[in-house]
């Protein structure tokens, strides 16, 4: 009985040490986020704790799954590129070690001025240049203003697992143990 007690105390201690260490640590898995600014798309690659993934490849696919281009992230894990086509764009991040994430930039998110660059709307635009220009300026300014908020939102949705998940997971494991013993006892 004494040995059993010691055994559980030791293992509990080990668990407690591991749990304690987690508070200062980071999470795993890769994460890709993107937003539109002007006629550019800005993509951010990060580990799920928010640390940037440097020099990682990001592949851009169109809505038919055709590879359009490949970009490399910079020091801050950021890639900036011009919108290649007006379609749903799929951005895929792969670190070659089996971690992958993707982000789809919806067509509806792509900017109006880029959409209006086809010749028909340019003809119409001649009549109300001021309004069209105003729209472009306002939209550009808005994008600039919203960029930090977009960034914060990405960070918020990407803060990694919290204490709730950790304690919850441990709870599940011991719950399973209890369940096993319960059914075992009923069998006897």
């Amino acid at each position, binding site marked *: 009985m004494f040995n059993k007690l010691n055994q559980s105390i030791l293992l509990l201690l080990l668990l407690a040490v591991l749990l304690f260490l987690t508070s200062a640590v980071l999470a795993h898995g890769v994460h890709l986020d993107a937003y539109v600014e002007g006629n550019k798309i800005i993509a951010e690659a990060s580990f799920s704790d928010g640390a940037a993934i440097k020099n990682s490849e990001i592949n851009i696919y169109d809505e038919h799954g055709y590879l359009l281009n490949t970009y490399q992230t910079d020091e801050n894990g950021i890639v900036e590129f011009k919108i290649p086509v007006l379609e749903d764009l799929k951005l895929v991040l792969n670190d070659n070690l089996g971690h992958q994430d993707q982000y789809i930039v919806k067509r509806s998110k792509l900017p109006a001025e880029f959409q209006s660059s086809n010749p028909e709307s340019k003809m119409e635009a001649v009549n109300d240049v001021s309004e069209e220009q105003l729209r472009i300026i306002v939209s550009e300014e808005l994008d600039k203003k919203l960029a930090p908020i977009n960034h914060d939102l990405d960070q918020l949705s990407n803060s990694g697992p919290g204490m709730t998940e950790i304690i919850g997971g441990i709870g599940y*494991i011991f719950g399973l143990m209890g369940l096993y013993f319960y059914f075992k006892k009923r069998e006897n």
Partner: protein
Amino acid sequence: MHISEGVLSAPILISGAVLTAAGVTVGLKKMKDQDIPRTALISAALFVASLIHLPLGPTSVHLILNGTAGIILGWQIFPAILISLFLQSILFQFGGITTLGINTFNIAFPGIAAYYLFSFARINSNFRLGILSFISGGFAVFLTSILVAFSLAFTDQSFLEIAKLSVVSYLPVIIIEGIITVFVVFSIKKININILGGIKEDV
């Protein structure tokens, strides 16, 4: 070590799931009632261990502790890893449900290898016990990185290239887990050596 969804092809996923199912079956068959609390505790420790990151090497890597767990649990490492990876995938979004099979095998199988490697240790020789603890702990991580490279090699890249990248990025973990295993084994020896499944017969 958590291979994401959509990276691997179906044959690899299916063979990984089959191997894991076999391993879990063996693990559950060999599991006695008194093994359950130990398995659950180690499962919880493994669940938390992957949150401990080492900001070393070219990528961000985390502890696996499959060598330590393998030495303590033996074949019960399969159900322990399966449960902890399943919970990680639904709670932390690490890995995924489809890759659960292959990920479990990649981590649990080296744990079993460490278990058998460690059975060469003798309780009365501290030197031999220390060396074998270190080797078992490190070797399990090494084998895991090789298995990960092997599973990824079936996608598009060459095996050697990924294996090099994988082993290099896990090198710090290999060393650290070797050291952790030595500490765990010696503290268990002080308290109650019977916790170690593999060495029991030699006492």
